[in-house]
């Protein structure tokens, strides 16, 4: 024991200082920008009603949490407590649905007097630990259905609970864990499928299911023909078919616009393209069986999923999503224009960020963020203040700082000899990436408005503590190895 102590490296040499510095920079940027949003109404920094003051307190407590994680809790405990923690948090996730007050339609907050706690924030930690534990302990290689099922269950349980809390935004963050699973061996097609589903969803909503199906067809045929050097055949067979379908679509619309009540109106292009897809699936199925071509089989499955998705989109959209969520998506896609209501936040946020220009208006000189044009200024839309006051230069710097943080985590994860640590590092990186992309994406109109905070920067203790714990557990795990090797 004593010998070990003397041989271990000092704290200074065993932690990733770049990671710690980027963390500290981000929380500092956060509190500075929170001060900027409130400085006009509350110029004093050290009064309790100032959010900047509160955030300083949250940061102080977060640093205490980090120190506790680094110096008090033995890193070895995380693996064994993963399962109990996961179970407890899942229990809380479900419990909160029944005991929580209604906060803007969602039931996700425990309130103990002045302190509020969102189990969904803690769930990121417990799920990450749980996922790391099952993958490392059960040695999941994602070659069998069992592996998929176990990992899927670990992720889907909290997702469903959070969905039931009406926290769709927080739920979406869990989609990011696909990155972890990808690193640990699942087929890249799952990611591709996710991408295609998003494209199909968007195209179906914005244009017509016809075009979505056409895109599926083009992707399916191209991905089968091109790798086998059958591009010429594709041009000879599929390309004319695609042109014919498009022509038919245009002719149909023209004719129906001119003569609304012809019997021709019954021959909808969607039927034709469905028939084509069916034929394609049958053809690939037969070919796949004959040549024992797994790719053909996967293609067929994917076509089926996508076609089903495409046809189901209107239903999913109208029945599953809430009214305001539908509107946010429609605004994002430009289907409806609503600068006052659903689109107000985004319009204002884009104006604030856009008006920053290259170098910004200067710290504390933002007009849009100071005078309350942007809602949720210090929490979800904190990036507007950064955009307005420090401009493109500042925005880029902040994004690069996040990338630096994520990169250091991934680098540490890859260097680790323990699979548990590696998977956990990827989990942390995925969470950060999802938050980063969704939050900034929504402020600049790339994503629908999803109410999740910008990690470490947005106002709020709950989120800051959760991310601090999430990150520093990784630092502790990482250091635990470096200490000895």
């Amino acid at each position, binding site marked *: 024991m004593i010998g070990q102590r003397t041989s271990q490296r000092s704290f200074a040499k065993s932690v990733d200082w770049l990671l710690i510095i980027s963390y500290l920079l981000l929380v500092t940027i956060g509190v500075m920008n929170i001060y900027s949003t409130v400085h*006009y109404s509350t110029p004093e920094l050290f009064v309790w009603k100032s959010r900047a003051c509160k955030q300083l307190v949250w940061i102080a407590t977060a640093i205490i949490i980090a120190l506790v994680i680094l110096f008090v809790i033995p890193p070895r405990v995380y693996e064994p407590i993963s399962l109990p923690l996961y179970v407890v948090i899942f229990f809380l996730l479900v419990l909160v649905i029944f005991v929580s007050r209604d906060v803007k339609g969602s039931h996700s907050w425990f309130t103990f007097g002045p302190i509020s706690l969102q189990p969904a924030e803690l769930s990121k930690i417990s799920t990450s630990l749980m996922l790391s534990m099952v993958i490392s302990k059960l040695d999941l290689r994602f070659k069998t259905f069992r592996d998929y099922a176990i990992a899927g269950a670990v992720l889907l349980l909290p997702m469903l609970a959070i969905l039931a809390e009406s926290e769709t935004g927080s739920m979406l963050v869990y989609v990011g864990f696909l*990155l972890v699973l*990808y*690193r640990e061996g699942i087929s890249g097609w799952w990611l591709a499928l996710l991408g295609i589903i998003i494209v199909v969803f968007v195209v179906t909503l914005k244009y017509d299911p016809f075009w979505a199906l056409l895109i599926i067809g083009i992707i399916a045929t191209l991905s089968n023909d091109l790798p086998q050097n059958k591009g010429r055949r594709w041009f000879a067979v599929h390309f004319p078919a695609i042109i014919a379908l498009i022509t038919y679509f245009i002719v149909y619309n023209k004719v129906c616009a001119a003569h609304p009540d012809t019997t021709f109106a019954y021959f909808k292009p969607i039927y034709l393209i469905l028939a084509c897809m069916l034929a394609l699936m049958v053809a690939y199925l037969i070919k796949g069986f004959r040549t024992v071509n797994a790719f053909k089989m996967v293609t067929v499955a994917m076509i089926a999923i996508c076609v089903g998705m495409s046809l189901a989109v209107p239903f999913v959209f109208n029945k599953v999503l809430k009214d305001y969520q539908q509107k946010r998506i429609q605004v994002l896609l430009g289907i409806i224009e609503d600068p006052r209501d659903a689109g107000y936040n985004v319009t204002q946020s*884009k*104006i*604030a*960020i*856009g*008006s*920053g*220009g*290259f170098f910004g208006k200067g710290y504390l*000189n933002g*007009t*849009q963020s*100071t*005078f*309350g*044009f942007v809602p949720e200024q210090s929490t979800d839309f904190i990036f507007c203040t950064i*955009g*307005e006051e420090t*401009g*493109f230069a500042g*925005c*880029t710097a902040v*994004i*690069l700082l*996040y*990338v630096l943080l*994520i*990169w250091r985590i*991934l680098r540490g994860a*890859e260097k680790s000899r323990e699979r548990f640590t590696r998977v956990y590092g*990827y989990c942390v*990186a995925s969470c950060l*990436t999802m938050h*980063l*992309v969704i939050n*900034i*994406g929504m402020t*600049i*109109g*790339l994503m629908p408005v999803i109410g999740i905070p910008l990690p470490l920067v947005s106002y709020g203790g709950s989120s800051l503590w959760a991310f601090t714990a999430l990150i520093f557990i990784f630092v502790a795990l990482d250091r635990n190895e470096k200490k000895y090797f």
Partner: protein
Amino acid sequence: MKLERKDRVLIGIGVAALVLIVKLFSIQVLDSSSKDKANSQSMVRMPIYPNRGVIKDRNGKVLVGNKMCYDIMVTPKTVKEFDTTAFCRVFNVDKEYVKGKFEEFAANSRRIGYQQVLLLRQVTPEAYTAFAELLAKNDFDGFFGQPRTIRQYPYNAGGSLLGYVSEVDANYISRHPGEYRPGDYAGMTGLEAVREKDLRGVKGEHILLRNSKNQIEGPYRDGAEDTEAIPGKDIVTTIDAELQNYGQRLMKNKVGSLVAIEPSTGEILTLVSSPCIDVDKLADIGKYYAELAKDPQKPMYNRAVSGLYPPGSCFKLVNCLIGLDEGVLTPQTQYPCSMGYHFGNHRLGCHAHKSPINMEESIMMSCNAYYCYVLKTMLENNNYENIDEALRAWDEYVYSFGFGHNLGSDFPSEGKGNIPTPETYNRVYGKGHWKANTIISISIGQGEVACTPMHLANLSATIANRGYYYIPHIVKDSEGIEIDPKYHEKQYTKVDTTHFHKIIKGMWRAVNSGFGSGGTASIAAVEGMDICGKTGTAQVPHGADNSVFICFAPMDNPKIAVAAYVEHGGFGATWAAPIASLLVEKYLTGSTTRPDLEQRMLQGDLMYRFPSKR
């Protein structure tokens, strides 16, 4: 190269960050529309309107001043339900008007955004005070009174030449790029337009910040970018307000012009174009514009500087001076007149007077035949190769008096007039097919000769100065305003200055010979004033002759030169001569010795001679 999965994950994250950065670049750097939107939301640009320069008369009396009023502005987006009844009562407007305005704002709400728009124009300070009380008591969010100044006219003098000020329209703004914004005022006619650059001053701007609830938070950058208004420069005119007012009263209910110039400076003392715009209407031009534009006598038309008329017999003075200078005429030259000038089967008529007469008498009695002979000898002068050359020489003389071109005064739309050239007649008759008798009517200021009343006043001033004139002008040098140096330069005619005293005697006799002497302008005589004048009775195609008179006084060291032109007034002595004479007397003595004549002139109404075709 086969990428490992860990690298692919890293690349994926990098690409996602890059997408964010590219999008940020596009909305922050490439697209500047957010800046404008942000500014229009969070900044209120409050224009600070400068006081327009005051226009004064030559004695420092204010002709055009300013008075305070308020434009009621409104930010439609932030207006809540308000007490329309109280609002309409305070401002005395229709509910329908207010309703209509707000419907209009609602229809354009996208374009208007958070800008302030005009609801009511130029309300009085009294109404505004009442409204301010209302503002304090009730919920009138989004309303605001913008202080403005509008024109005020203490004297009813010079309406037409002062011009009016009104809000700029889209057309005006586009003709003056970068100088005006909607809501600005600008001088549109007359002096207000000519001296717009001096009068308007420089607008200031206060930039305020407002929050999302449209409450003003304070000055932008602590007022570092605010600018204050710089008042316009005052303009001192050469006009004598009292005299101008008197002239306008004399010309009331007559159509024509009355121009008075100080010969020693070229300063215009009075310039009346009748009918003229009452200053009351000028102040509220928007309301009266349609009415004024429809008036067949065109009150907005400045006929004194733009109207073209035959000068009639006044023009004989010019021919007389040219004759003297050319040496074809001496004061002793006598010509006969038997009720006119006879040539071939034609006769250019004249009135009954003794015959033959000499040069002085020809002026005094205004003999037509005499000047026919004068012009004939001039044009058939053997010194010239042919009549073309002779007429060309004559033209040069006439031009040197200012006729036939713009005098160069500071009025924008000065009439050139017309002086016939050899080319004119060669075009009409063909070269070699015309001779002196063909064009003999130009000798008595008829035919192709046309000029403005200001040309005539300038002729009078030229004779008064014995051979030169200063370009007539109405703006004097004053603090901050420097007029063109050309107004201080003597403009000599081509006629030798030694000849002028010869005709002045005739002009003196035309006025001062007493009734029965044959002098045409005895009615203009004032005891001891030594008015020198020349009548004119200009024939016009339709209706009664135009009554014309030019004069100056006193004979030595003249202080005032006048031209009066009364359309369809008959003989020069009937209306023009008494009016001009009264004006001279008023200027020199401040009153009149002839109250009866004054009354007759003030009350004279010739409007029945003008068919009111609408």
